[in-house]
């Protein structure tokens, strides 16, 4: 029985529970001549909730935990001798899983029967070619230990699935029966089901907390693994980034930090003045015709996915800068450069800055403007000397939020900035950023034991800390400012 069938059965039981609970309440009230406390539907609803929610919750948790637990128990049974020289236990476990899946597939196709399988030995049969016939390709020949582990894996998985099915059904029926037997006319069924629903609502709001815990937990855990293999001092203070596949890499973080900082600086230098001027012009000068056209047009820029900007950098801005500026001036010959990524990222940030600043400028009380006009100031003087100083904290907040976006932006720099880690000042040279290196260290075949892979988590942690710090600072400033005028 697969889990989807199980879900369907539980849902069927839920519907049945609803009608049984409702019927029991109506019947009891008729027999005893007692009026129902709640509408009849609530009695059904309370039974249905108790049937469905605990059972489905159990199923979800089981599906999430079962592979982990089975893997741990099997992985302990594989002797160290079965692990090839230089290989990792986790890779052997991948083989174990694949063989187990292949065996199940063969039995389903009728190429193999259960008793045959228990007699099968890896030393006497060529498992690899047998599996290849059924469409499961293996990287190497199967050692007896691994094959036995795979057989164990299969049998434990089957038992676990059977137990799971029984446990889920018993939970659904048992808890459902208990809820059903509680149904009496005097029972406050509406209150019961509303309390239940309220608990579910509360549970949903915890998902946000769980996500944060998951992010911080996974980043910290893997970063600690990394710092066990690679000294933290070298990571934070070394100026060379040179990962090697065979170990002995230099994983200095400073060139990446510099690249990130440089690209963000170019982007913000473009985006902040232009975004701010757009906000000022649209809020203070533009007529309604221009505003109704320009505002949505600039907001469209904010809705465009970053991959589109990345492609724009790759096929248009990069070659343009190279052919018209960098090469004639002798500054470089690479189409991916700090300038390419920075300018395109700047365009991406313009709507972000302008819409945030727009809100802030509109929040400045009209009385301040009127006072300034009354003293004879022109519009631009009012803006420069009254509105902007009053809006400054909010604008600083917007600036910080934009900076945190720039630091965390990935696709534009992956496609526009290049991949060479370098500490230079020429903006027409390719440099690389933290996010680019996270992507390049974690895509492709990765093994979770080497510092070259784990460094991505340390980079991720630094990125997370930076952006979180900027966001919290920005929110703090914006909040504080809002209180002033409200």
């Amino acid at each position: 029985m697969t889990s989807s069938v199980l879900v369907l059965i539980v849902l069927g039981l839920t519907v049945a529970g609803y009608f049984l609970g409702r019927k029991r309440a109506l019947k009891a009230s008729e027999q005893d001549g007692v009026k129902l406390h709640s509408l009849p539907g609530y009695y059904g609803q309370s039974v249905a909730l108790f049937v469905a929610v605990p059972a489905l919750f159990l199923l979800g948790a089981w599906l999430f935990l079962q592979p982990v637990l089975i893997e741990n128990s099997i992985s302990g049974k594989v002797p160290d001798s079965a692990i090839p020289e230089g290989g990792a236990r986790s890779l052997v476990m991948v083989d174990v899983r694949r063989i187990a899946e292949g065996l199940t597939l063969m039995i389903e196709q009728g190429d193999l029967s259960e008793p045959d399988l228990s007699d099968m030995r890896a030393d006497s049969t060529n498992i690899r070619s047998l599996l290849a016939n059924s469409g499961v390709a293996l990287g190497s020949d199967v050692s007896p230990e691994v094959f036995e582990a795979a057989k164990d894996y299969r049998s434990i998985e089957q038992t676990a699935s059977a137990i799971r099915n029984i446990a889920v059904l018993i939970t659904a029926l048992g808890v459902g029966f208990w809820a059903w037997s509680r149904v009496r006319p005097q029972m406050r069924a509406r209150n019961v089901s509303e309390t239940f629903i309220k608990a579910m609502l509360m549970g949903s709001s915890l998902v946000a907390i769980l996500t944060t815990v998951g992010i911080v937990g996974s980043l910290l855990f893997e970063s600690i693994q990394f710092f066990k293999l690679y000294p933290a001092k070298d990571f934070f203070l070394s100026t060379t980034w040179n990962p090697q596949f065979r170990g002995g890499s230099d994983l200095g973080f400073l060139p990446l930090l510099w690249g990130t900082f440089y690209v963000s600086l170019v982007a913000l230098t473009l985006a902040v003045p232009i975004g701010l001027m757009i906000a000022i012009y649209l809020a203070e000068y533009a007529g309604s015709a221009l505003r109704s056209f320009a505002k949505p047009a600039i907001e469209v820029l904010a809705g465009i996915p970053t991959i589109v900007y990345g492609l724009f950098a790759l096929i248009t801005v990069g070659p343009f800068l190279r052919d018209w500026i960098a090469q004639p001036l002798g500054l470089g010959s690479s189409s991916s450069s700090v300038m390419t990524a920075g300018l395109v990222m700047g365009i991406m940030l313009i709507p972000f800055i302008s819409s945030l600043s727009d809100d802030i400028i509109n929040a400045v009380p009209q009385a301040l403007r009127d006072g300034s006009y009354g003293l004879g100031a022109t519009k631009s003087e009012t803006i420069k000397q009254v509105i902007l100083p009053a809006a400054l904290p909010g604008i600083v907040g917007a600036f910080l939020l934009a900076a945190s976006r720039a630091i965390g932006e990935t696709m534009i720099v992956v496609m526009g900035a290049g991949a060479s880690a370098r500490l230079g000042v020429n903006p027409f040279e390719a440099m690389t950023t933290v996010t680019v290196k996270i992507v390049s260290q974690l895509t492709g075949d990765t093994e979770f034991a080497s510092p070259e892979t784990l460094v991505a988590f340390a980079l991720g942690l630094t990125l997370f800390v930076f952006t979180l710090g900027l966001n919290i600072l920005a929110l703090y400033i914006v909040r504080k400012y809002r209180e002033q005028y409200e």
Partner: protein
Amino acid sequence: MTEVTADTAATTGPANRSLFQAGVRTRKRHAAERRFRMMGLAAVIFGILALVGLMASILSNGVSSFTQTYVTMDVFLDPAKLDKKGNRDLKDIEKATTFAYEPLIKAAVQKVMDDRGIVVEGVNAKQAYELISKEAPAELRRYVLANPDQIGNTVSFDLLAAGRIDGYYKGRVTMESAALDRNVSPEQLVLADRLKQAGVLESRFNWGLFTAPDASDTRPEAAGLGVAIMGSAYMMLIVLVLSLPIGVAASIYLEEFAPKNRWTDLIEVNIANLAAVPSIVFGILGLAIFINFAGLPQSAPIVGGLVLTLMTLPTIIIATRAALKAVPPSIKDAALGIGASKMQAIFHHVLPLAAPGILTGTIIGLAQALGETAPLLLIGMVAFVRDYPGAPPEGFFDPASALPVQVYNWTQRGDPAFVERASGAIIVLLIFLVIMNAIAILLRRRFERRW
């Protein structure tokens, strides 16, 4: 107005002060005002030009990918090559690999040239065959396996032309570049022109871009978005099914039930921060928790869907809370006043009135999720996937690609034809986004009520 009198005012100094003559200082101030205003206008124009430039760049590079060059030919499905035993047994026919189909196409090309009397100096039979895509034998084989009874007949096929030939008609390949290209010669282009005159070779709308799976580096003409569109659709389905109920439930709790205390504050700060966490960090989360810890398969829509759900939740929660807040309290008060419980008041009255706002926010959240690339790179969606995922729910665990990731994948290939495809794929992605946002705007216009 002062501008009118400004040109007549020449004298300065306190002695000449008149209301009809602007002084030097006033003129300076007004000039500064005009400059400032021009700067503002320039900034707005820059923003709009950036949008226009972005769109023009993508469109001009990508529109050509919607047409494709095809060669229409009659191919004789030779039984001697395809079914040597002659018993039409599917297992035997399967044994004939794509290599067995190449001579059939070669013969067909030769026949077309002989029939029309097309002779081009310096093009031999092998080079003429190179005009046809390397994908063609595979296409033929698929057809034969689907219709084994056609063996022995002559069937008319629309076969893809090779990528360089296609590029020739899109301006990417010229006679000069062909002279330097190992993959195509100017003579082959001349032959292609002759075939076009004969009506054998023509450009048509490229349905394959929407339906075909990805193709390898050497055959960009066959690459399509089929698997990517399916993968993206599966992920959007997962995101919708998970994030809408969870997001709405969380918002109702926070907006209507949560007591004002530290715990609630913590949840709220958390949601605000999650909305600003870089997307790539969610990719790391997916890799560490869903793939490494929970053992879910790489490249699977289920993992992508879960990661995108976590990313979309803050957007949906923020939009839903705004929609719930916009419903006037008098409606809830009225319901409470005539004896409804709080839960009834919310679920029967407040929530239906907030529904258009919630849906709008959800669609915008989905549109964001559809364009998200970085986290999907980390969970292995960038892998080369040629097989369509199966039907849900099992298909959620099959490898698939996603639209934006496919774009990235194509930009990393060597052949410039892939850049054209990538731009075409972006147009497809943008069309989806425009449709989603248009629905959101329509919903807002049609159902939004102001109290």
